[in-house]
């Protein structure tokens, strides 16, 4: 019987999943070949109250959070990502600016995954289109990549995906977090043809 496979997969993800990109609180914690990536994901309209159902004992950040699946090479995100595909993901809380440690080199957002329902016999995932390049480069210490705005309909079909420049607001948050005088280079995400 394979019914509990959803639960097994989720437990495996919670227990064995490789770490996400770590949030950063101090630039001095960055290695010489590392950069802090600053950005945001927005879902329009936002999740309604009760639309996401996380039940039971769940380890991990799932609430109002999309997992941006990253890789150094652009490739299609599999329909059922393997545990290894979660390595280096960005756990982006909708509407909140993320500051995550990354390698100072180009990388790609392959797509996003929102766990809409966890618990019971199955899990419900929503897939967000990807194919965006994060153009960090050697020598960078901080890169602003923009706000990835997903506009959806009631069936979770995405009507419009845009990269919005909110540099001013993000820069203010960046300065408040890491101190004034720190440079934040603007390099907005670009959608790349696969």
């Amino acid at each position, binding site marked *: 019987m394979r019914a509990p*496979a959803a639960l097994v997969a989720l437990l495996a993800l919670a227990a064995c999943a490789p770490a996400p990109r770590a949030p950063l609180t101090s630039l001095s914690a960055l290695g010489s070949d590392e950069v802090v990536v600053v950005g945001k994901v927005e879902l329009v309209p936002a999740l309604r109250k009760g639309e996401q159902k996380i039940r039971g004992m769940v380890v991990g950040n799932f609430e109002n959070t999309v997992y941006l699946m990253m890789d150094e090479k652009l490739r299609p995100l599999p329909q059922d990502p393997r545990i290894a595909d979660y390595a280096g993901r960005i756990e982006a809380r909708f509407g909140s600016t993320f500051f995550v440690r990354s390698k100072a080199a180009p990388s790609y957002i392959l797509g996003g995954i929102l766990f809409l329902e966890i618990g019971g016999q199955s899990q419900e995932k929503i897939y967000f289109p990807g194919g965006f390049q994060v153009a960090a480069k050697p020598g960078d210490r901080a890169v602003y990549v923009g706000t990835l705005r997903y506009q959806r309909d009631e*069936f979770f079909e995405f009507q419009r995906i845009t990269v919005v420049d909110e540099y001013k607001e993000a820069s203010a948050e960046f300065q408040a977090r890491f101190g004034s005088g720190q440079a934040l280079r603007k390099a907005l995400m670009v959608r790349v043809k696969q």
Partner: protein
Amino acid sequence: MKTRMGVLLLAGVLALAGCGGGGHGRDINDPSNSLVFGYVDMADAPTKVTGAQIRQVAPPTDKPYWGTDVKDGLFYTYYLPPGSYQLATLHGSSFLRGEHQYNLGRQGGDTGVRIDKPGIYFLGAYKYKTVKSGMFEQSKFGIERVPTPREAELLQKLLDSDAELKNSVWADKIRQRIARLKK
């Protein structure tokens, strides 16, 4: 041909609350009702279909699942108020293979309908497709849109097989719809 993917669950006993054509306490002759129906050919599935649920995705509700009546693959409900809906689950059981629940994902409008005004809405005819999955993966399946049976044929079947429907305000509406489709 686009295939809508889903997850197949096998269990001893499944909670089938909401199955059957329950209308959340609404009257069959309520003028704001819509008739929503569809068909699924389960010839290649482990079981026949004995129940189906439709999920209300808009407006928001605490009770999003609407049961349907099912007859030989034809599923329908005539109680839906205006809103957006999609086919959510199919159920079936067989003596040898046990109870099955076929869950269609939440994402995608291809088995969905937006009801702005009361009327008759056809979700389409589909065929069950087996999808290969790994040993430790959830069992998967797909449903693929097929051209037959056609809407008029299914409406006629509905009219012929459901006495309650035949004696309701729906009978005339269905006949009118069939006539329009046959023009």
